[in-house]
């Protein structure tokens, strides 16, 4: 213990310090779950920092390049659960070039040495190789939870290794991953003695799942709570799975279509009616309307429904939704149309989250009647609505006003007008005032995505009102640097800013350089930031990595005034990264540095 006493401390404070044993502190801290609270706790004083070092078990790293494995290991003695995020969010839309980075292997290799008792690993947007998965299987004896979200780089061989070697695995969840198909039967690699599976989500795997192996797995795992199969599991086999796991709480079906056969229908209907605990339903690829009624018995209990792959139309959707009075989350295609959303607003008063995806995003004029009215209905009718993601083709300021006034409790509002720079179709003007109303009324707004015709005015509103805003996404918006300046100087809580195709340039960035150190990251692509400004930032801000990602070749080969293609700036205590590919230059005092390996 630190016995050095500062000149200011009194005898009283020394007595207090000695009578507060570490075990008590540790016990108290164990009730503090949230990552940000634990971080705050560790900053109170050296003693608390030290205690936190020893007893922290769960860790979240929002940007894998903000810190290095060595730094983490030096600080924390015994981590059991780790979550790491890699690529920037825009990588989800393929806007970050392939091969940019975020490799999981170096992390896992380091963790294997330092934390052999690691039980849980959650990785998002990272490149996970089969070798990395093998390392997990080999090195962590008590490994229980593997969640890979938006990851790539591995194959069914890697999964086979996990299945064969992780004897205590409880959870294997793959969300939106790209998994290479190496053939074989990876599910069959779970040993016969293995019985501890509770959650299996393989909906993103495109290759065949050996049904017999899956069935046998379910038979011997009595604690299955969540099962999401992939689209290769046919509907006529779904009943078999349900019969083996009637206690499921989370079900993701396979293809929900087959020719109408009475015996198949009946078996499914009975199986669903016996699953009394299903709260979340997803999968539902290509729903055949004639089979839809088999799920009606579980609808009243559903809190989460994902119909975003279901190609059923409005009438069938309406019929389904009227059964789902307790729904809290709905993801659906624009087949629901305005009239379906009206029904949703009338039937589902507990709705908290709505996502409406476009069925034909590249079709100029699809035959779908989904407009701003649908969203207005839901906003007016659902008092608990907090989170919105809405793709549509038209919007008005008036609609946005109505939404804002009725739903001040919105925390996430992401609007995507499919045609860039679409104006308010009534006034033919920008949507500034409408979005302004959103940020003014929704004081707890944490996440916002703008689209449509937007000028700098909206950014002044955002800078003035959006004090809790943490993440902002912009595309084809704004008129000048002033817009970016308003955001960077006004949004106190801003952590992530991602921008494409906006006329933002050097001035706003340079003026607000210090702000960038208070944020996790800034992504700008196809904007007007010059290489000169990048160099200036890189030189002046040593705790930022300023990455120029440019497919045209070295930035030095062009004029300093030439705008860079993509710019990714993030705060870090690990210095420039050492694994950059050939089209990424980390700009710092060495001007443009590329990784030594290249």
């Amino acid at each position, binding site marked *: 213990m630190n016995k050095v006493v500062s000149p200011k401390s009194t005898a009283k404070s020394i007595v207090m310090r000695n009578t507060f044993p570490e075990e008590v502190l540790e016990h108290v801290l164990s009730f503090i779950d949230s990552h940000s609270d634990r971080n705050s706790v560790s900053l109170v004083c050296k003693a608390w920092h030290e205690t936190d070092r020893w007893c922290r078990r769960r860790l979240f790293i929002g940007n894998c390049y903000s810190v290095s494995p060595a730094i983490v290991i030096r600080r924390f003695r015994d981590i059991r659960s780790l979550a790491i995020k890699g690529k920037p969010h825009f990588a*989800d*839309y*393929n*806007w970050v*070039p*392939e*091969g940019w980075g975020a490799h999981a292997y170096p992390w896992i290799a380091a963790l294997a040495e330092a934390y052999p008792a690691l039980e849980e690993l959650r990785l998002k947007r990272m490149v996970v190789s089969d070798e990395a998965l093998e390392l997990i299987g080999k090195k962590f004896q008590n490994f229980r939870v593997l969640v890979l979200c938006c990851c790539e780089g591995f194959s069914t061989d890697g999964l086979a290794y996990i299945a064969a070697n992780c004897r205590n695995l409880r959870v294997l969840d793959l969300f939106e991953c*790209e998994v290479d198909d190496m053939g074989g039967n990876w599910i069959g690699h779970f040993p016969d003695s293995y019985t501890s599976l509770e959650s299996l989500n393989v909906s993103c795997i*495109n290759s065949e799942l050996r049904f017999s192996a899956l069935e046998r797995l379910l038979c011997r795992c009595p604690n299955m709570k969540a099962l999401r199969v*992939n*689209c*290769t599991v046919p509907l006529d086999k779904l009943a078999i799975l349900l019969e083996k796991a009637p206690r499921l709480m989370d079900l993701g079906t*396979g293809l929900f*279509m087959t020719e109408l056969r009475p015996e198949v229908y009946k078996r499914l209907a009975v199986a669903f009616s016996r699953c009394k605990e299903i709260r979340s339903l997803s999968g539902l*690829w*290509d729903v055949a309307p004639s089979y839809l009624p088999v799920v009606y018995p579980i609808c009243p209990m559903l809190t989460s429904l994902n119909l*975003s*792959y279901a*190609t059923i139309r409005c009438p069938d959707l309406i019929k389904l939704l009227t059964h789902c009075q307790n729904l809290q989350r709905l993801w659906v*295609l624009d087949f629901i149309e305005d009239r379906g959303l009206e029904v949703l607003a009338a039937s589902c008063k507990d709705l908290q989250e709505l996502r409406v*995806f*476009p*069925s*034909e*995003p*590249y079709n100029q004029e699809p035959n779908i009647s989904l407009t701003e009215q649908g969203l207005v209905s839901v906003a007016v009718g659902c008092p608990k609505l907090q989170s919105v993601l809405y*793709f549509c083709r038209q919007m008005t300021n008036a609609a946005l006003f109505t939404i804002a006034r009725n739903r001040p409790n919105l925390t996430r509002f992401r609007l*995507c007008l*499919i045609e*860039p720079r679409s104006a308010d179709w009534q006034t033919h003007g920008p949507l500034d005032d409408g979005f302004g109303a959103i940020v003014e009324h929704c004081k707890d707004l944490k996440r916002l995505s703008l689209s449509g015709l937007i000028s700098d005015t909206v950014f002044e509103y955002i800078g003035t009102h959006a004090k809790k805003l943490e993440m902002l996404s912009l*595309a*084809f918006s704004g008129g000048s640097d002033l817009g970016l300046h308003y955001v960077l100087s006004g949004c106190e809580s801003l952590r992530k800013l991602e921008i494409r*195709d*906006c*006329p933002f*340039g*050097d*001035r706003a960035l*340079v*003026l*607000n*350089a*210090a*702000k960038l150190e*208070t944020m996790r990251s800034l992504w700008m692509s*196809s*904007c*007007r930031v*010059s290489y000169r400004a990048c160099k*200036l930032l890189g030189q*002046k801000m040593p705790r930022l990595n300023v990455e120029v990602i440019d*497919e*045209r*070749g070295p930035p030095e080969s062009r004029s300093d*005034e030439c*705008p860079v*293609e993509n710019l990714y700036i993030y705060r870090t205590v690990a210095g420039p990264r050492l694994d950059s*590919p*050939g*089209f990424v230059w980390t700009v710092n005092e060495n001007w443009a540095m590329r990784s030594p390996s290249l």
Partner: protein
Amino acid sequence: MVNHFPGFETFAMDFKETELTLGPPGEFRVSGRKSGKKRGFPEMLDLNLSGPNGRRNDSGAQLEQEASSSPKSPAAKEQLVGWPPLRASRKNAMRSGGSNYVKVAVDGAPYLRKVDLQMYISYEQLLKALEDMFCYFTIRNYFMEPMNGYEYVPTYEDKDGDWMMVGDVPWKIFVESCKRIRLMKGSEAAGLEPRTPPQNAVMEAAEEDSG
């Protein structure tokens, strides 16, 4: 928050003097901006498709029309690259689940792209997408005056590990057997030009390997 940036005043003045004179953003990516001087991929495909017997597949007949007529019909509006923001799995809701991603490499380029073959229904669509994807940097660095009409030839590796010309086999078979795509420099691709019908070419290659 105070911004310590001593150099900024000078920088700001310099900046004003060297005001960037760029067009509005977004034009980099809009695929329709090409003036049509470069011979596009659909036209290249046209050349590849006709074998010694004048054999053409379905898309070949269409392409012949496309190649000769310009400009494109107004109905087929060019779309921005990577817009709207949708994950790969959502780009085509009309397909029954699954995707078929293959990597696309361009000779000489340091990076790869990926395409989902299930998003396209014909060679024409695929090659148009490739053209859009690579036009930006290829136009700057690689496409000089076209030699013999084109510089880059689309090739692919099939399930057997053989490198074939894109367009050799019917579209559906291509989608099932393609593992990755490579835009090869014209000179290198000359060796792939099929002089015999596809089946024999594969057998010949196999014989060479075993020899």
